[in-house]
């Protein structure tokens, strides 16, 4: 090895980089053994991926601003009076007073005030439910949707990944056909059908869980399973396709030829690159699951965020529409960035070059 060393170059065992370069000795902290370059922790990380994250965050902010502007234009263009939320026609004087109160008499003023409030974390009032602010509604609904969504995604991964792997390994045998059949049914069946059937079977006939609502352990399994099924179906398909792709590649053949056991080859070597499409699907899927599925929430009376998207739009409520859309956009951007970072971590061949 010493023969291949470049003339004049020092080995790393000769000292830290700046010493080798002939620069003055650094401070004690800089020499501390815990302080290493990011790439020393894991080959997939590095200053390149840090730059990537920062760049993506910057673009994320720009995206949020564009989403806000486009949604605002749509909200004010839609016909209908947002301050009219009662059962009777609001007298024009009262409608005008309300518009003044909420700065809706001037669209530019409302645009600026809402944006300024949103930057400070205050989404302002909602017209639909006059006693609550958008912040309160989202603060109450988002954790519920988040718990349900994370649980559903976790279940979906738990079911989907092993099923997809086994289906790919036992390709064209009965297990594969059964899995593909289940996947087709899982993707095609709408959640209000599966949800209603599960509700009838487990809550009404078997009395195992309460009919709907939220707050105890028993309220969790049914909506989580209903929400997980379509995601599990997609994840199974993606894993299966990814695995089939990877199983045919050279390095797998090398590993088998070297004598590694089937289990090691599949679960340790093949699954990581095969999981990449699943990972890129999981990003937006988690964001989508976390912000609630309207149908699941309606059927199981779960007080989540999904119903607020739909109800705010139906009621032409500008504050709630804008705040829920911004929350969803922020979550989507955040999860997409996380997925990109995870990419580099999962597959060291992708060094933040995505």
């Amino acid at each position: 090895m010493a023969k291949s060393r470049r003339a004049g170059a020092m080995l790393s065992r000769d000292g830290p980089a700046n010493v080798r370069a002939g620069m003055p000795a650094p401070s004690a902290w800089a020499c501390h053994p815990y302080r290493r370059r990011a790439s020393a922790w894991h080959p997939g990380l590095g200053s390149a991926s840090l730059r990537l994250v920062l760049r993506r965050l910057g673009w994320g902010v720009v995206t949020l601003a564009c989403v806000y502007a486009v949604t605002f234009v749509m909200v004010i263009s839609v016909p209908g009076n947002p301050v009219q939320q009662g059962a009777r026609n609001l007298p024009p004087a009262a409608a005008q007073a309300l518009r003044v109160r909420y700065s809706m008499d001037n669209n530019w003023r409302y645009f600026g005030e809402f944006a300024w409030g949103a930057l400070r974390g205050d989404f302002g009032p909602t017209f639909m439910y006059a006693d609550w602010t958008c912040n309160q509604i989202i603060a109450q609904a988002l954790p519920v949707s988040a718990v349900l969504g994370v649980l559903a995604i976790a279940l979906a991964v738990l079911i989907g990944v092993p099923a997809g792997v086994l289906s790919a390994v036992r390709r064209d045998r009965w297990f594969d056909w059964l899995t593909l059949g289940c996947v087709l049914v899982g993707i095609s069946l709408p959640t209000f059908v599966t949800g209603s059937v599960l509700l009838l079977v487990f809550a009404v006939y078997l009395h195992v869980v309460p009919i709907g609502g939220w707050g105890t352990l028993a309220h969790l399994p049914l909506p989580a399973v209903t929400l997980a099924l379509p995601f599990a179906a997609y994840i199974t398909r993606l894993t299966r396709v990814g695995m089939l792709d990877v199983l045919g590649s050279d390095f797998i053949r090398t590993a088998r030829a070297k004598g590694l056991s089937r289990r090691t080859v599949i679960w340790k070597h093949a699954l990581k690159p095969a999981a990449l499409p699943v990972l890129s699907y999981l990003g937006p899927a988690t964001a989508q699951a976390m912000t609630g599925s309207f149908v699941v929430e309606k059927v199981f009376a779960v007080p989540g965020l999904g119903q607020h998207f739909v109800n705010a739009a139906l009621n032409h409520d500008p504050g709630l529409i804008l705040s829920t859309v911004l929350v969803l956009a922020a979550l989507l951007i955040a999860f997409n960035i996380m997925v990109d970072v995870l990419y580099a971590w999962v597959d060291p061949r992708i060094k933040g070059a995505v």
Partner: protein
Amino acid sequence: MIRVLLLGCLLLIGLAGAWYGSRASEPPADFRYVNPSDLHTLDPARMSWTPDLRVALNVWEGLTSYDPQTTAPVEGTALWPPTCSPDRRVYTFALRPDARWSNGDPVTAADFIRGWRRAVEPGTAADYAFLITDYVAGAKEYGRWRLEGVGVLTALSRLSDGWRITPEQAQALVRHPIWRDVQAAGGPASLPPPAADDKPAWDAFLDRLTRGAVDWRGFHDAAFEAHVAEMDERFASVGLRAVDERTLEVRLARPCPYFLDLTAFPTLMPIHASIELLRECYRGAPLTAEGLVAYDPQWTKPDYRRNGYGGLVSNGAYGVADWRFKRRLRLAANPYYHDRETVACQTVDMLVYPDVSTSLLAYETGEVDFLPAMEVPFDHEIARLAESGERPDFHLCVTLATYFFNFNCASEEVEGRPNPLRDARVRRALSLATDREALVKRVLQRGDRPAHSLVPPDAIPGYQPPAGLRPDPEAARRLLVEAGYAPGSEVPPLEILYTPSDERVCQALARMWEEELGIRVELRCKETKTFAEDRAAQRYLIARANWYADYNDPTTFLDCLLTGNGNNDSGYANPAYDALLAEAAEAADAAVRAELLQQAEALIVEQDCPILPILHYATPIAIKPNVHGLYPNARLVFPFRYVRVER
């Protein structure tokens, strides 16, 4: 790595389970009922939806309250019966000595005046403010004065922020005394305003106002101080007076036989003094910069603490214990309520189930005790079960509400198409060609009653509506010929504007008219909010509508068709009709009054037909057999303090 991921998933599931399992479950409430969507507001002055009104009737108590079976007014916070002056214009209410708020404070007349004043203020934007402004002397003038002041202060406030104001706001500003001071100060804004319809000159004028170096903030503050100084003096001319701490005197603008019905309505409920701690102030005065009376909307929360506020204080049989949005509203019995010994259910839960079918399942399995509304897709099945007696716990409440269609009586043309409905004969012909029995019994099958009049029959004591028009296609065809639409020059196509829930009725109507009268009918479905705007702006030919009675008197229906009434969506304007209603308002004798109202309604349903009554609702409700004290009634009023549940 994948093992890490799977282990992480399992850990997440385990953590979620552990967290949920560790939460102590609360005991179930004594009585539980369902509300499909959460309350729009708990503010009694601002509410207008029936589920909100239902909660307010239990959380607050007005001067009177409703009888649970007949919905007639009975004793509330005031002793019964109140004294009425011989000219029936002055009511004196003596409050019960044991009437208390939920924090122990006694209920005073000032609390009622505060609540009523708040309902009249433009900042509250109460849908039902007319219940006070139309009846209490001086309230309308006070409201109008306040609105003018708010308009001027808004314009000045916007100008001082540098925003451009609208021509209407500028015209209001110019009419106000403060304009003299602006002109006296000189500068570019002191030039006189242009003529009313000179648009370019107005644009230039508004530009001068916005860009000129005028001390708008100074003028705004001056106008603000003047307005605040005059406010209490103006309110003193309203017919509300606290004779002493426990006596309230109300002076009406005109005699009102149903005033005691109005005093039970949530808009006229008292408000506790602690709300003043949450009032928005500007420069130390209790108004916003635009001159609006505004309170922190969080005042209705039981656990809201700010500026010394101790949470919601109410005087009804129940207080709000807990309100989790879109989940549950828990009411707890008020320990200071004057009839607290008779209140059997100590806690009441209002559960929110967005899907009505799920709530029905919850009712069937015993998780809820009462369903006040069952708008399911299989409503004909519910009606059948209720009518046949197979399900004795299902009741069809004959409701004081009518479903009808508005005809556009005013516009010459609608979106470029001529409007044949301006001719009353065409409208009458359409009414004669409508077979309401078939609609109700064969198309909808929901147990509703066919309607030939606007006011439901056998509903309001002392009043029977006229017979209305029975189906007579021959007479209808003759009327069309008389109106000039003989075969050869037919009636132009009519368009029915409706919301998604009216699909079947509109198709049936279109079929009937096409078959009997040969009129081509087009159907246009719009989503509710856009529909409401189109209807209010009269951009329709025929539009669906419904009306629920606000009080137990025919005028709650008939007032809607007065010329210029805010809810007169058909644009009907008949001086003879207005005169009849005005005469009935002054009539002293109840029989004479009923006779006049009947004549007015006959104009509506038999002659001019600005509306097409279809049916009177029969609302299906479900009450568990072990629940006593809830009675099907026409106003869907369910006071919970009479409820007793046997477990």
